[in-house]
């Protein structure tokens, strides 16, 4: 086994090994935590290696079991996949360390660590696979782990939220599987590179085959449910605030973004034969998603629910970059995804610390944290303002690049919508700021909880500080990430390297 196949397989194998070890050590508390931390750190190291390897060679692939493509299952990493694996592994490490301070012993005993690693395995598998049925399988791996993580603990809110989450995501999986089957019956292949060749050749003079368009829309619905776009996002704000902070933070950072990743793959690699129609539809969805998410957040009264609605709103910007279907637009979308994962995860972690130090998550019951926790107040402002797109933080460059891309193709309306939504986002962040930090603590507010111990404090604040630093660094030196995003977008618009890596010399 050479190093290329190793670096492609390890992002899946390491979480699997860690999951098995943590399951074996479930009665040995320290050993379980040690195995878990080793898993997160190892995964992060491998994902850095993967990005470096992909930068050197363009795109890498490995055929599992030695069956040549398009017959076997392919793992393939282009720049987008490598970047996504890197940022999701980094979030795994950050949220994982936070979870050591946040998750109670009983949850650890009942498999929190195991499920967390299985979730990371599913996410990485979805980013790396080059086969659309295999993508379905990785989605299921990720979903089953997330179902259990949402409901682990069995409180009423978790079960009710989890039930809605599960039902809608199962419906999404069913639609996804049906469209994969229809796609196979139409094209005779499941390999995404092969599908690209078949679908891009098959368009005659009379426009695209209506059945293929139907499949495209079915996949749009399936991925749309997972990405929580308008009008399919209802499962998200009803369930994301119910599990413990560490769980909702990793969900907020990664799960919907896997849906967005799948949308990007599907609508750059597979369904590009009717761009005028499909991508126009995507643009409408993007605008409506932004607006409905941000309006939903305005009426909420709890930190975590406000943040949940903002996930929906921000997904709109990513879909907008995809819908523009230019190199600049996709580069903006990729930049936006990477920035958003860091910022949103961090906001959820901070929301968890607010809940913990204030005693409640409802804004009416907490206050005065500015006086008691000035550091936390400063830490909240960094990702909060970055989410709203205030310079010089990372969110400014992310919004700037998608809006600039939309103006290049004369998308005045969508640009205006994006700017207005940015303002409303700022309003929401200021609402959290003034209610939780600035106003005096209410008389009949939540009881003051027990202070954290020193070790817990380091584990809780450490990841938050590091992620906030990342946000500031991206904001001050956006060139590196912008170059990465532009290179990824270039590969998406001209997938020669991807096809070459999967199918070999025959393509050229």
């Amino acid at each position, binding site marked *: 086994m050479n190093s290329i196949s190793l670096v492609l397989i390890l992002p899946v194998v390491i979480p699997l090994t860690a999951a098995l070890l943590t399951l074996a050590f479930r009665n040995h508390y320290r050993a379980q935590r040690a195995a878990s931390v080793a898993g997160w750190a190892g995964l992060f190291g491998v994902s850095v290696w993967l990005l470096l390897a992909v930068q050197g060679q363009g795109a890498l692939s490995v055929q599992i079991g030695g069956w040549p493509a398009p017959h076997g299952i392919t793992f393939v990493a282009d720049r987008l996949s490598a970047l996504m694996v890197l940022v999701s592994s980094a979030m795994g490490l950050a949220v994982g360390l936070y979870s050591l301070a946040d998750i109670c012993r009983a949850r650890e005993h009942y498999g929190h660590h195991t499920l967390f690693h299985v979730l990371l395995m599913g996410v990485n598998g979805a980013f790396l696979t080059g086969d659309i049925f295999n993508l379905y*399988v990785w989605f299921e791996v990720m979903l089953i782990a997330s*179902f259990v993580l949402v409901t682990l603990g069995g409180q009423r809110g978790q*079960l*009710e939220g989890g039930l809605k989450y599960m*039902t809608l995501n*199962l419906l999404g999986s069913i639609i996804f599987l049906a469209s994969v089957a229809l796609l196979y*019956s139409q094209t005779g292949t499941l390999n995404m590179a092969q599908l690209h060749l078949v679908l891009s050749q098959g368009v005659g003079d009379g426009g695209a085959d209506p059945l293929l368009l139907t499949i495209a829309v079915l996949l749009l619905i399936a991925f749309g449910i997972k990405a929580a776009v308008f009008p399919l996002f209802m499962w998200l704000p009803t369930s994301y605030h119910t599990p413990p902070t560490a769980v909702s933070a990793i969900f907020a950072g990664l799960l919907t973004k896997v849906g967005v990743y799948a949308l990007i793959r599907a609508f750059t690699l597979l369904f590009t034969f009717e761009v005028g129609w499909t991508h126009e539809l995507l643009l409408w969805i993007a605008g409506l998603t932004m607006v409905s998410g941000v309006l939903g957040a305005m009426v909420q009264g709890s930190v975590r*629910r406000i943040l949940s609605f903002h996930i929906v709103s921000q997904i709109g910007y990513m879909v907008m970059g995809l819908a523009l279907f230019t190199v600049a637009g996709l580069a903006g979308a990729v930049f936006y995804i990477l920035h958003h994962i860091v910022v949103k995860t961090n906001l959820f972690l901070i929301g968890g610390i607010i809940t913990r130090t204030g005693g409640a998550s*409802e804004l009416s019951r907490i206050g005065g944290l500015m006086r008691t926790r000035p550091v936390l107040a400063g830490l909240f402002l960094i990702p909060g303002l970055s989410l709203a797109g205030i310079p010089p933080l990372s969110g400014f460059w992310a919004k700037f690049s998608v809006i600039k891309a939309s103006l290049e193709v004369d998308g005045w309306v969508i640009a205006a919508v994006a700017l207005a939504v940015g303002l409303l986002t700022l309003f929401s962040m200021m609402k959290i700021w003034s209610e939780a930090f600035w106003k005096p603590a209410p008389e009949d507010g939540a009881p003051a909880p027990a202070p954290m111990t020193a070790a817990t404090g380091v584990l809780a604040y450490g990841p938050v500080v590091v992620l906030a630093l990342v946000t500031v660094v991206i904001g001050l030196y956006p060139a590196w990430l912008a170059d990465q995003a532009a290179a990824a977008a270039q590969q998406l618009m001209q997938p020669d390297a991807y096809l070459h890596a999967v199918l070999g010399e025959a393509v050229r």
Partner: protein
Amino acid sequence: MLVMALLIGALVAIGLYLMLRRSVAKLIFGIVLLSHAVNLIVFSSGGLLHASSPVIEAGETMLAQPHPDPLPHALVLTAIVIGFSVQAFAIVLIKRAHQEAETDDFDRMDTTERDV
């Protein structure tokens, strides 16, 4: 083929109808019927034909023609296994939610929608 199409259509229709009811017990039947329907779609995606199984006979080097496409069979097995385990989890979750909320009515399972 027509029978298969009608069967799948009926299963999807009944499944969706049951999922749209307010009762959570009917929800689980809806999920089960829908995943049966989609398994049948996967099964028939390689085309339906009367032929021998796609196994190379002893002494031959090629498959006998005509032969069915074996790939959908492998896919449907995977899909059945995944679907079965998810359904098992769904049933347990619905039972627990039903116990906690003490209601069978979806509209009354709304504690996550309201501010406390």
